[in-house]
């Protein structure tokens, strides 16, 4: 087992070494190629040529949209869990706030009857999710570790229960006819229609790129340093003059903002939002994606979110010995997580610091025991 582990470590080390020592233009070229690949991916002519990569039994463009939403959520949750080290088990609650705000303001089934266009509801949704993040964070971020996890878990459940049972939020009947994002082609047909999921995917992909650029800059600034110091040792951070509560709240609000964005995009694509969209499982899946990819690393979160959402969809339509594998998708998912936690607890693409923190903790266990 040790040798396998070493092999994995050394392989990954070689790749990361080569990447960090590659000239700048080469890195940019690789990044550009990856981006072009993902923009081209939903085109049938392109993905059919890729062999077994596209999913079976479902519309690949639609699957890609779902995956992109998960990636966006993973990038957002990575700020909270990966950077600031706050265990948030109810991240999907912010997605819900975003989706429902759009639904309530735009749908004809809403009691408000405001019937706003999607684009007008979007900023309101983003502001409201941020406010909900601050409201949830203000009392709870004074708590640490386990307490925070339980309170956030409660928050997501509260939203789910409210959505299920409140008359205003329409329960399982939900909101329908939520308008799509604006825009039309030259011939007058809308870009964001019902039939073609690709424009939505491209929109989310573009937003992911923008969000990643923003998050990356934030993480390299004083704010990012403060987050890392809080994650590594909150007391020490405070003793160095870091206003820990303020920065934890910031991490929470930024994460909420991105979660709300994902929710609003989802509502604009799906046309329909109901309490059935709000399973607790979603929060767990996103958290698993962040940890699987490498908590604290933006690329890790993207890979984790993409991989998890893709794997779950990939099982659809595959039959083995008369069993529909899709039915057992979460069992495989759990299995993968267990194996990962044994061999690579720091995730697929870990953060350099994060890896050192893990080592430090392991050393501490040995010293203590």
């Amino acid at each position: 087992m040790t040798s396998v582990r070493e092999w994995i470590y050394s392989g990954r080390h070689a790749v990361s070494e080569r990447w960090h020592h590659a000239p700048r233009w080469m890195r940019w070229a690789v990044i550009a190629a990856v981006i072009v690949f993902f923009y081209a991916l939903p085109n049938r002519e392109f993905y059919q040529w890729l062999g077994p990569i596209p999913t079976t039994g479902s519309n690949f463009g639609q699957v890609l949209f779902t995956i992109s939403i998960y990636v966006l959520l993973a990038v957002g949750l990575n700020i909270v869990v990966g950077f600031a080290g706050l265990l948030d088990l109810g991240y999907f609650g912010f997605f819900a706030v975003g989706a429902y705000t759009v639904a309530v303001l735009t749908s004809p089934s809403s009691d408000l009857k405001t019937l706003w266009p999607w684009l007008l509801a979007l900023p309101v949704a983003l502001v409201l999710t941020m406010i909900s993040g601050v409201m949830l964070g203000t009392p709870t971020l004074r708590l640490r570790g386990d307490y925070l996890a339980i309170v956030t878990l409660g928050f997501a459940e509260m939203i789910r229960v409210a959505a299920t049972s409140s008359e205003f939020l329409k329960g399982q009947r939900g909101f329908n006819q939520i308008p799509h994002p604006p825009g039309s082609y030259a011939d007058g047909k809308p870009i964001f229609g019902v039939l073609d999921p690709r424009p939505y995917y491209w929109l989310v992909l573009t937003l992911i790129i923008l969000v990643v650029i923003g998050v990356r800059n934030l993480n390299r600034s004083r704010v990012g340093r403060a987050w890392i110091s809080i994650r590594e040792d909150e007391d020490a951070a405070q003793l160095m003059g870091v206003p820990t509560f303020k920065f934890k709240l910031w991490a929470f609000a930024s994460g909420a903002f991105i979660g709300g964005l994902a929710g609003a995009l989802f509502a604009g694509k799906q046309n329909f939002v109901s309490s059935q969209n709000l399973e607790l499982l979603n929060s767990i899946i996103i958290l698993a994606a962040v940890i699987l990819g490498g908590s604290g690393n933006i690329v890790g979160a993207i890979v984790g979110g993409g991989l998890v959402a893709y794997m779950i969809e990939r099982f659809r339509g595959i039959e083995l010995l008369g069993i529909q594998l899709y039915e057992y998708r979460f069992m495989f998912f759990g299995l993968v997580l267990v194996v990962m936690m044994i061999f690579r607890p720091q995730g697929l693409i870990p953060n350099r610091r994060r890896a050192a923190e893990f080592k430090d903790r392991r050393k501490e266990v040995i010293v203590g025991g």
Partner: protein
Amino acid sequence: MTTLLEIEDVSLLYGRIKALHGISITVNEGEIVALIGANGAGKSTTMRAISGIRPVASGSIRFAGEDITKLRADLRVRRGLCQAPEGRGIFPGMTVLENLDMGAYTRRDRAEVAKDLARVLELFPRLQERRKQVGGTLSGGEQQMLAVGRALMSRPKLLLLDEPSMGLAPMLIQQIFSIITEINEQGTTILLVEQNAQQALARAHRAYVLETGRIVKEGTGAELLHDPSVKEAYLGVA
């Protein structure tokens, strides 16, 4: 001599347990003041009260003429009060330089920070050697030096040191105490909590003896070093 830190009748609770029973401590500018006592006497708790990590139940803390009893911990750092935390209080995933950089978190005067960095690396040549190494991989002594150096990076008026000699080999203890004296001679006031009473009293201008949350004795370092009861209780000689 002007008073820099004045703690008056401070009590502190951990839940329902009273950890400090109205202690009063004064630190004058330019001094090294030591706080000695056995395990659980309340030394580290006193430190936490001063740095603001723990709220006090009653009493007042004045620093540089201002009441800071209710001030947030991070704002106390900005006023010039910085603590090197006990034991492994460094950031394990950051390199030595990144750790030191965190010490200067509250400062924006880059040129002066660079000067202080040079000074710290001069004080601790070991840190200079290991500057690119990740904090968690340092030895106990190196981590301790890093914690002291990092606190110095905030250019504090008052440096709080919590057990700087804990877990160190005798030679390293000597070394760290002579560095503490040097820091003091360069103009930083120091309040020091120690179990190693011998060293602490030898280096300190004044000292307090803490027993179960109360100050039971105070005097100059030399006085306490020769005090029979202190000798018996803390210095291991009858």
